[in-house]
């Protein structure tokens, strides 16, 4: 494998469908042996970027390279080097596990045996059911089969478009463990997800929204460089609390976040004074504490900066 080039290189890619801008000047680089996450909600343009990179779509503007090869000029070569798992369930439900595997192997001119080592850690988990039709598998098993099929030709770059959507938390966590194993074997992985909590499982992430990249960094660094003080606050009546907080001037933003509401301090913020005012307003079981932001807080801050 050529280690001098990047696994993926995206330069100023734009793509529109009619008047809808799916991607606007997107640039990013994925290093070899890296798990790079595209994190963003539906409509962020993740799937469009994937389709451009796996040579299914042509960009309107900009260029991109996968494994050092141009996705337009060398698209045939690119196709044999990538493994692609589209967002939709992309297996044949009426074929068995075994038949799906064999079919995808022949598609790339290899046999299952040839590259068994690479897929074995994943495939072994579903192999006992190999005579079962793919349509009758559980979500987690389908996902493992789809990943095995995408790996069977030993690609150098793996593209996984929302592989964990609709899958429960346990299967999702197992799936990320599998990706880390694959990275150990030298694969470069571009993965997209709408679940912000999965960001921490990536080496680097791009936060995207509405066809644009808001920021690219490692998840840790992204959280560290969050400027501003974040507090968690809770009370007995969470909705009334939220309404009271919205009246405060020294709070830049506050929003629901589960057990605690999160609030971003503005200039002149005084936690004690606010707590006192809230008690005066009749809020019970009040608790306020400084907290460490997570990726969602970062995302919300980037989004609201953009909107202003």
């Amino acid at each position, binding site marked *: 494998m050529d280690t001098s080039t990047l696994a993926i290189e995206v330069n100023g890619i734009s793509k529109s469908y009619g008047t809808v801008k799916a991607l606007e000047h997107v640039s990013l680089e994925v290093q070899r042996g890296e798990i790079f996450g595209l994190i963003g909600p539906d409509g962020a343009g993740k799937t469009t970027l994937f389709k451009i990179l796996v040579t299914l779509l042509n960009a309107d503007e900009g260029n991109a390279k996968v494994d050092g090869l141009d996705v337009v000029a060398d698209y045939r070569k690119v196709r044999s080097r990538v493994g692609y798992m589209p967002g939709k369930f992309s297996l044949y439900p009426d074929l068995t596990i075994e038949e799906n595997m064999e079919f995808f192997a022949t598609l790339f001119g290899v046999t299952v045996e040839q590259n068994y080592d690479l897929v074995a850690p994943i495939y072994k988990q579903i192999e006992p059911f190999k005579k079962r039709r793919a349509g009758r598998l559980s979500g987690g098993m389908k996902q493992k089969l789809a990943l095995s099929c995408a790996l069977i030709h030993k690609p150098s770059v793996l593209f996984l478009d929302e592989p964990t959507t609709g899958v429960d938390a346990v299967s999702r966590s197992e799936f990320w463990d599998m990706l880390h194993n694959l990275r150990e074997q030298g694969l470069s992985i571009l993965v997209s997800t709408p679940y912000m909590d999965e960001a921490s499982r990536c080496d680097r992430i791009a936060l995207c929204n509405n066809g644009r990249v808001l920021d690219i960094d490692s998840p840790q660094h992204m959280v560290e460089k969050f400027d501003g003080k974040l507090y968690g606050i809770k009370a007995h009546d969470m*909705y009334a609390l939220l309404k009271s907080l919205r009246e405060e001037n020294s709070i830049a933003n506050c929003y629901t976040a589960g057990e605690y509401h999160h609030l971003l301090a503005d200039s002149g913020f005084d936690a004690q004074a606010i707590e006192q005012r809230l008690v005066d307003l009749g809020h019970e079981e009040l608790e306020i504490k400084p907290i460490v932001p997570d990726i969602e807080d970062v995302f919300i801050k980037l989004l609201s900066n953009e909107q202003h």
Partner: protein
Amino acid sequence: MSNTDFIIQVKDLTKQFGTFTAVDHITFEVERGEIFGFLGANGAGKTTAMRMLCGLSYPTSGSGTVAGFDVVKEGEKIKRHIGYMSQRFSLYDDLTMMENMELFGGIYGVKSRELKERATALLHKLEFIEERDTMVGSLPLGWKQKLAFAVATLHRPEIVFLDEPTGGVDPITRRQFWEMIYQAASEGTTIFVTTHYMDEAEYCNRISMMVDGKIKALDTPANLKKSFNAASMDQVFRILARDAQRGD
């Protein structure tokens, strides 16, 4: 216990498909005005249980009431007195916001003058009033979800069932959505919600965790974290679902 305290009260509710027991003797109550999280791994039987509670499917055995109606005998009445919103089926893309509201309000028997007033008020509250004549298909996903929730509560049901309502929406919209849920709950509507986002479990007053057709845990998020010695609901979920036998 009287029916007035609990909006849902089920005992040994069971659903079998042939030899497969999808829901296995579940017993629980949901208080009025509560935000109740109904969680479980894929294939744990959540959807089947929810279908029985919504009057869409007959239980094989067991008994219970939803909004004061019998889940075995009064499925039709239950359907009329609950709100339901799922990620999959929500609104008609080729109808405008207002037309969707009028359609669903009409289905639930809201009188037309009242319906217009309520729909207009809701659109004002959501700040969608300018877009009342926009086709739903051309709206961003987050808007659709909020509108779908408004539609599900248009007939002022006592309880709303939300089946994974926030899949795929951005964090800001997701939070706005939860604000709507909080608001509805503060006005006395009971919320029954399923989700795959474990952090959303923290929004709920109480949570039940289904594993292999049975309810394995039911408590407040704080108590659950304490008793499983876990830092987050995600961890609680993983501990509980670890020895699940079946997938979907």
